[in-house]
């Protein structure tokens, strides 16, 4: 017989139970270290709109002041989306080929900003902006003829003047959405999650009628107008301080950022945790560079009894010049000759020494390196991969490359999501315009990015072969790591095999040899003749090797 579950009795006094932090010491802050104010609140209450924009400012600033940081960010963009080709994954391959072609052409002119803004710049921005600025926005728009276009909206334009007290009056009815009395979406297919339906329509007109009316006061957080569940309804674009803001429905505009904390409606610069370090490093390097420049202005230090140059002993080619106040404006120019032998008086402390300096010292450089490494890690990237790959050995580099591939995968996930929205919007528009026929799987797309990085291509290839051979891996996975689609690879292999057999057949008929012999001639040479011989022996039917050259056809 199974025992009954034990009923837990939690006895309390009239004032509840006595609670303390005796079990976990760190649950109580002490004066041994700086006090951390409470952060147990929604993310937008712990980072203000001004704070988020300050991070954007600092991120933008430091990007252009620190070459290693600029290089690291561009490196991520280059490696993540050097190619990112849409691949139709639906059932109608013919439609897919046509749609891929249409998208390929559209990508050249997709941005309302015109040349040189196109699909490539769009992809780059989707990687760079979330790291540096926290996010970027994409507006789905169209020409007057309904041809689809996108517009990149930099993050600073959304909620620039947002205040914590901002709210918006939202009204939804039928398929129409109004914000503060302005129609922002006339074809919203699902209602907003606001207050209970209102029994009577409000005087604001326009848009589709019918269905229950939903009216409520929506919160605005950092320029994002939210429904009752914290889902964005629209984004508030601040044109200018004097002008009224423009609200764009969230169905027509979306941000690109990777949430780190639940409840985030805006992205924070990924440099946020390291920007002080980057600033300190930049200033430290600049000051140190000034010191180095000052040091480098000195060459020789001559110590003598008078403390000055004796014109009777040296050759002053050009005398110093002075201004009207008696201040020196140029130095005396001393002529030097190769092979000079200098004589100094003994026992006077006279000497000539090369001016030497050893700054920054080894400890400073180590500290700099550690700080730089931490700053890199704050953006998920690895300093050794980016700046100093020689410093680590082969095995550690393979681990680093695995991590880098993981980060690149994460960057591509965000780009893929954005591309799906943009290309899905464009394909839908093309079908509406008749530029593409209808297809039931029109929304099924994937993207072919660049191949994964590898620290040792041959090693990885050998591992793939072994794992596939032992059933521990699949060809599909290996192809994906190479930036290839198995279906495409197999299709191409079939084409190549067919062509090879065709050629082998022609050769066999022409020279009176077997198909296998013709194939052997066509195949790339093996590593040794022994291998070739054994392969022939395996491939040939019994007795074939005795056939005289050129004799007998099939």
């Amino acid at each position: 017989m199974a025992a009954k579950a034990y009923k837990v009795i939690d006895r309390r006094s009239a004032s509840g139970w006595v609670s303390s932090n005796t079990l976990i010491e760190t649950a109580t802050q002490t004066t041994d270290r700086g006090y951390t104010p409470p952060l147990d609140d929604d993310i937008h209450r712990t980072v203000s709109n001004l704070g988020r924009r300050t991070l954007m400012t600092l991120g933008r600033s430091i990007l252009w002041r620190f070459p290693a940081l600029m290089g690291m960010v561009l490196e991520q963009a280059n490696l993540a989306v050097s190619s990112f080709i849409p691949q139709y994954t639906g059932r109608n391959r013919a439609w897919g080929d046509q749609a891929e072609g249409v998208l390929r052409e559209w990508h050249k002119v997709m941005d309302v900003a015109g040349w040189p803004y196109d699909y490539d710049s769009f992809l780059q921005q989707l990687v760079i902006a979330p790291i540096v600025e926290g996010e970027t926005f994409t507006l789905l728009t169209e020409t007057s003829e309904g041809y689809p276009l996108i517009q990149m909206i930099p993050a600073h334009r959304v909620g620039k003047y947002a205040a914590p007290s901002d709210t918006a009056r939202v009204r939804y009815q039928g398929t129409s959405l109004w914000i503060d009395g302005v129609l922002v979406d006339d074809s919203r297919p699902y209602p907003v999650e606001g207050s209970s339906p209102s029994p009577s329509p409000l005087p604001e007109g326009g848009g589709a009628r019918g269905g229950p009316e939903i009216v409520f006061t929506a919160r605005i957080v950092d320029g994002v107008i939210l429904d009752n569940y914290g889902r964005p309804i629209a984004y508030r674009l601040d044109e200018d301080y004097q002008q009224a803001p423009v609200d764009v429905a969230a169905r027509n505009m979306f941000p690109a950022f990777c949430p780190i904390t639940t409840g985030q409606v805006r992205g924070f610069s990924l440099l946020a945790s390291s920007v002080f370090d980057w600033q300190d490093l930049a200033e430290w390097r600049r000051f140190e560079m000034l010191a180095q420049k000052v040091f480098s202005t000195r060459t020789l230090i001559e110590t003598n009894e008078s403390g000055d140059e004796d014109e009777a002993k040296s050759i002053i080619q050009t005398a110093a010049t002075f201004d009207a106040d008696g201040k020196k404006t140029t130095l005396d120019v001393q002529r030097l000759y190769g092979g000079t032998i200098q004589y100094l008086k003994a026992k006077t402390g006279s000497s000539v020494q090369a001016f030497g300096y050893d700054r920054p010292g080894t400890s400073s450089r180590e500290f700099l390196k550690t700080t730089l490494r931490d700053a890199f890690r704050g953006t998920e990237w690895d300093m050794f991969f980016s700046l100093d790959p020689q410093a680590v050995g082969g095995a550690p580099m393979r681990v680093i490359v695995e991590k880098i591939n993981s980060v690149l995968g994460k960057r591509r996930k965000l780009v893929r999501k954005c591309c799906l929205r943009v290309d899905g919007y464009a394909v839908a528009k093309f079908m509406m315009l008749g530029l593409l026929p209808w297809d039931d799987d029109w929304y099924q797309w994937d993207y072919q990015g660049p191949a994964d990085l590898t620290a040792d291509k041959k090693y990885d290839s050998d591992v793939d072969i072994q794992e596939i051979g032992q059933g521990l891996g699949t060809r599909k996975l290996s192809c994906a790591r190479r930036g290839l689609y198995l279906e495409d690879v197999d299709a191409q292999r079939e084409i190549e095999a067919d062509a090879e057999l065709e050629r082998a057949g022609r050769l066999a008929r022409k020279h009176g040899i077997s198909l296998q012999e013709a194939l052997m001639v066509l195949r790339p040479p093996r590593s040794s003749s022994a291998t070739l011989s054994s392969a022939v022996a395996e491939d040939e039917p019994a007795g074939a090797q005795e056939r005289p050259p050129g004799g007998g056809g099939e």
Partner: protein
Amino acid sequence: MAINFFVGWSQQELEAELRAAQEDLAAGKSTISSQAGEVRSGAAVELSAQERIKLILRALNKVNPEEYPVADVTAITSTRAAFSGAAWD
């Protein structure tokens, strides 16, 4: 702006002091001691004759730059190297 240690002295006073310093130097004195107030080692000021002359010359340049041009009263303490002279050198 360099400090003029003899500010307020007339040209005659400076030239008299210059003459004295030059005579000290010519006589082979390496240092000149001067004391103010009570004689205590801590209040003694020792200066080489050459340094004293340099300071007086700088002061004279301030009083009469025509007679004591700055180029003549400024020691060369740093120079810039040149490895060739004029184009024909």
